[in-house]
């Protein structure tokens, strides 16, 4: 239901430049993000993820279409909206000469309720093992990112908008980040997260939108996206892949991307297993391994245009 959506984007287009040099960054994007979900926004560089986020934050203005957050217009009521959101940009820049705690105090003073906000910032910093006494210029990129997360979350926003949030974070901190996101969602709050790290999206997101060249190709639950009809099949034969078996497998309509090397054959199977089992029965099968497609496979499928019909 669009009315109850936290984020509601309708026919949003953004065109940079004019005339022959214009670039369509977003093309009639329509998308809803529901309360209490972690929404992953997937796409390669230049797909339009950051442009979408910048429109939502009223940093740039759309060429056409509209975006509302909490039912309020992203442009006309940006100050009211910003009161309720936390934002982490993809390329985070902060005041170099100020310490982490001074930055926290500044942001808290703009937001108001300084005492409570700073207290929560201290708790988050402790959890992320961030030393807030250091000046921003002395922080590593990972620690800067942690500070960005603290600033985005310290006022307990209702919506987090995160652009590539785990860039530069070490695996342990990424784990803490995942926990924070789950806790955040468990409180009924919403996360809109752009990423090209598929494993991250798979681990924490409820739904995923796949963006290509400014066009939203699909919106699915992570489960539904993973549950596509193809599998990777690995077969190990005793004494090598028999030539007639290889030929038989290649001729199967359900098999594609067949590769044979020594005793091993690898192929992509779409549909039922029976034709494949019959074809390999002519050889002596030592091992059979079926691999679920990764989100990356699905991602590539969407990018090649194949997934659009899925």
């Amino acid at each position: 239901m669009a009315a109850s959506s936290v984020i509601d984007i309708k026919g949003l287009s953004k065109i940079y430049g004019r005339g022959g040099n214009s670039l369509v960054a977003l093309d009639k994007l329509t998308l809803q993000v529901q309360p209490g979900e972690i929404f992953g926004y997937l796409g390669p560089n230049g797909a339009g993820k950051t442009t979408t986020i910048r429109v939502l934050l009223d940093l740039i203005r759309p060429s056409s279409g509209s975006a509302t957050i909490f039912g309020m217009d992203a442009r006309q009521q940006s100050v009211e909206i910003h009161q309720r959101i936390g934002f982490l940009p993809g390329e985070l820049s902060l005041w170099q000469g100020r310490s982490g705690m001074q930055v926290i105090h500044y942001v808290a003073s703009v937001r108001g309720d300084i005492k409570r906000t700073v207290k929560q910032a201290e708790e988050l910093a402790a959890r992320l093992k961030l030393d807030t006494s250091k000046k921003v210029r002395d922080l590593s990129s990972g620690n800067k990112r942690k500070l960005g997360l603290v600033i985005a979350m310290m006022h307990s926003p209702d919506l987090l908008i995160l652009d590539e949030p785990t860039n530069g974070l070490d695996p342990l901190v990424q784990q803490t980040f995942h926990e924070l996101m789950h806790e955040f969602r468990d409180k009924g709050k919403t996360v809109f997260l752009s990423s090209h790290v598929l494993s991250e999206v798979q681990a924490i997101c409820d739904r995923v939108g796949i963006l290509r060249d400014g066009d939203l190709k699909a919106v699915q639950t992570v489960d539904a996206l993973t549950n596509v009809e193809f599998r990777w099949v690995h077969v190990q034969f005793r004494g090598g892949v028999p030539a007639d078996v290889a030929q038989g497998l290649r001729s199967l309509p359900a098999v594609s991307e067949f590769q044979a090397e020594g005793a091993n054959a690898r192929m992509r199977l779409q549909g039922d297993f029976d034709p494949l089992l019959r074809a390999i029965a002519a050889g002596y099968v030592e091992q059979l391994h079926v691999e679920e497609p990764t989100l990356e496979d699905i991602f590539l499928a969407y990018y090649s245009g194949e997934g659009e019909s899925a």
Partner: protein
Amino acid sequence: MTGAVFIETFKQTWKQMVGWGIGLAALAMLVVVMVPLFDMQDMKSLLESFPPFILAMIGIGSDLEVFATNEGFVAMGFFGKSALIFAVYPVVMGMRITADEEDNGIMDVLLSLPVSRAQVLVEKFFAYCISIVGVVALIYLGVGIGASLGNVDLDVGRLTEVTFYLIPLMVFVMAATMLAAAVARRRMVALGVVTAFVVASFMLQTIGLAAEGTVAEPLGTVSFFTYYNAGNILQEGFIWPHIAGYLALSLVMLLASLYRYERRDVGL
């Protein structure tokens, strides 16, 4: 919260304000302590021997009488000669209002907070206005310390006017820089535009002074530097129409910056 950007901007700027203020105050002090080394009548004779364009380049018009005084020497040696230097500080501060933070991406973080673009511009503008007042106050202190150290007899009232007249001039330059940044978006473009504006104004003032009594004289009237003439201020005190002109134009440029900044994409 209203005022938070203003306070933080001032916190981030006060060290530069003190640094610039001390530097310019030291220069002013140096000029003041040199006053007893010169005989002012000899100075007047020397100045009379200079061709008009040389006098124009050091900010002096045809009326040399006023410069044959202690205050005139300070006005000529510091306030007249340093006009371009006084323009540098407000350009640096004007670039900080939007251009610098937009260029390095900090504006994305700031504008994601519950604060409007207009509020950011206005609070920063007034914080930097305060820093200009601070720099000018330190210059005034430098003149006073120089007079005390060199035991120089100065007309305090007139030099106070010459010194504090810098405030509207510097606010005007800062407002022009802010407008250039609000319109041009790219930091380097804005810096180029405002540098060209300041240098061209300085040249027009120089041409206007050097070409007194010729058809080229009116060229000086379009230069904003023309309305900060230390010699005239020594003779006439605060020239209120000029001060009002600086402040009115600054206000117009502030409003134009708000209009433009409110309507364009940020950080691209």
